[in-house]
């Protein structure tokens, strides 16, 4: 069964279509990286899933049931934009409210557990407004984890987190995924997302541009050899003829040749044409690069 199934979802704000016939499928237990430019409709889609705004059309199913079903809704943990906490209350009191809202039996134990998970044990007595941005994000995640939800909806949860915070977040999400929790996570920090996501959905102008698994992304992101020589123009022309494709990376000033071995390229250039390679490395197209290319293609 899929954790989230969306068909032809639309949301119109006055004349603007924020979500435009979007369809997406998030399998149960997946960590689904939801990617898109600012204003592409990610947050709106997440709010629609959580029932915080009403769709103009389409269908949202969570675990096979309508997203308005009370039984299903009680299984969602959410962090959208900023954590919904009362600024003048302590972290503990804020969490007690949410624990009561969820109807948890052992509130104190559960609050201590989730605060410990996000390494915020010591912040319980702090007023929420006095917490730093990073602390607030972690507390927001602790909020979302209360009651062990089956589905986590996280909108930009790693924003404001330091390196340690990101590592902790990664560990938590991977641990949850292993236990069968489904995570829908949107983020602009694609390098971080790439480390954890099992599925991806790329959204543009409210429409789903591409949905794929991490394996499919891997297949779409070839390895390449990046090199520098003393005669770049000549080398590029030779490599283009020999290997079919050799791109000049304007940012790094390197020539890129795809799906080849570094040793073969260096030997070929020097052995046949006497062109010495000064620098050479093997790399792989990252999610970020793939995403940027996809967006540029879309614009064209």
């Amino acid at each position, binding site marked *: 069964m899929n954790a989230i199934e969306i068909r032809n979802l639309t949301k119109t704000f006055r004349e603007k279509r924020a979500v435009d016939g979007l369809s997406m499928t998030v399998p149960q237990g997946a960590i689904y990286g939801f990617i898109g430019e600012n204003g592409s409709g990610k947050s709106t889609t997440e709010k629609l899933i959580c029932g*915080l705004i*009403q769709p103009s059309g389409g269908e949202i199913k969570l675990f096979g049931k309508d997203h*308005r079903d009370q039984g299903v*809704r009680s299984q*969602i943990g959410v962090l959208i934009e900023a954590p919904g906490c009362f600024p003048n*209350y302590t972290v503990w009191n804020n969490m007690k409210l949410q624990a009561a*809202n969820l109807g948890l039996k052992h509130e104190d134990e*559960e609050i201590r557990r989730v605060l410990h998970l996000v390494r915020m044990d010591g912040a319980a007595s702090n007023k929420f407004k006095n917490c730093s941005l990073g602390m607030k994000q972690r507390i927001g995640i602790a909020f979302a984890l209360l009651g*062990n939800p089956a589905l986590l909806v996280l909108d930009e949860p790693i924003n404001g987190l330091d390196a340690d915070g990101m590592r902790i977040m990664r560990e938590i999400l991977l641990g949850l995924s292993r236990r069968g929790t489904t995570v829908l996570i949107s983020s602009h920090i694609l390098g971080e997302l790439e480390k954890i996501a099992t599925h991806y959905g790329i959204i543009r102008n409210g429409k789903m541009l591409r949905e794929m698994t991490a394996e499919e992304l891997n297949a779409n992101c070839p390895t390449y050899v990046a090199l520098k020589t003393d005669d770049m123009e000549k080398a590029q022309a030779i490599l283009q003829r020999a290997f079919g494709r050799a791109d000049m990376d304007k940012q790094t000033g390197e020539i890129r040749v795809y799906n080849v071995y570094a040793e073969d390229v260096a030997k070929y250039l020097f052995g046949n044409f006497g062109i010495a390679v000064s620098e050479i490395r093997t790399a792989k197209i990252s999610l970020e690069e793939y995403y940027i290319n996809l967006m540029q293609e879309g614009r064209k």
Partner: protein
Amino acid sequence: MNENVKTGDFGKRLKTMLKVDARRMFTMPAVYIMLAISLVLPVLILVMTSFIGGADPTTGEAAATFTSVWQAIGSAGGNAMSMDITSMCNINLLYFLVAIFVCLFVGDDFRSGYVKNLFTVRSKKLDYVLSKTIVLFAASAGMFLLYFIGAMIGGGIAGLSFDVAAVGASAGGIVACMISKVFFALVFVSIALTLATVGKQKLWLSILGSLAAGMLLFTMIPMMTPLNAGALNVILCVLGGPIFAAGLGTVSNVILSKTSLV
């Protein structure tokens, strides 16, 4: 220990929502401020008006002021409100305070973003409306009770008469008057609650709307809840208040269900 959320039936859901609102009520400084104002306000009004006195600026005649402590609770006869100080500065002022408090209490849910946590796990908005109405009604009842106590203290300090018959009322009538007033507060609670769900993050809008609605209803209060209230007044308020609240509660429920919450 990990535990999953209990979804429950209507009763259980309402119970958990009431627990949330009761907790908020007791941890919110505004509640204690409102209760303190309710207690202190009648003391200040009775003591200051008795000691200062004054003249009507238009006629130059001595202004009508408090002669009996019960005037701070209401006026007998059930006539429409007159414009003297005893009619303007009495327990009926609390209705405005109740309206402001409702807007603050509900508006805070939206302004802090707490509604995201609340409504993500709660698809039935009726629980929210019902729980808010009950909790805010209880708080307003507390405010009316404290005002009553404050009036007794203020009257004692100002040396006002406690003679019930002198103001054309009876002890039973005053009890009935207080019961009527407390239940009439449900009208203000539900109006402010509905406007707060319309205004959401825009607290100023819900407060202004509630005060404007309160001004329209203000002249009705002395007629509905006179000092010598009888069974009819009590029945009208005890039944009418909840019926009015149920009607506007339905409207609030529809607003929350059909509009964006964030």
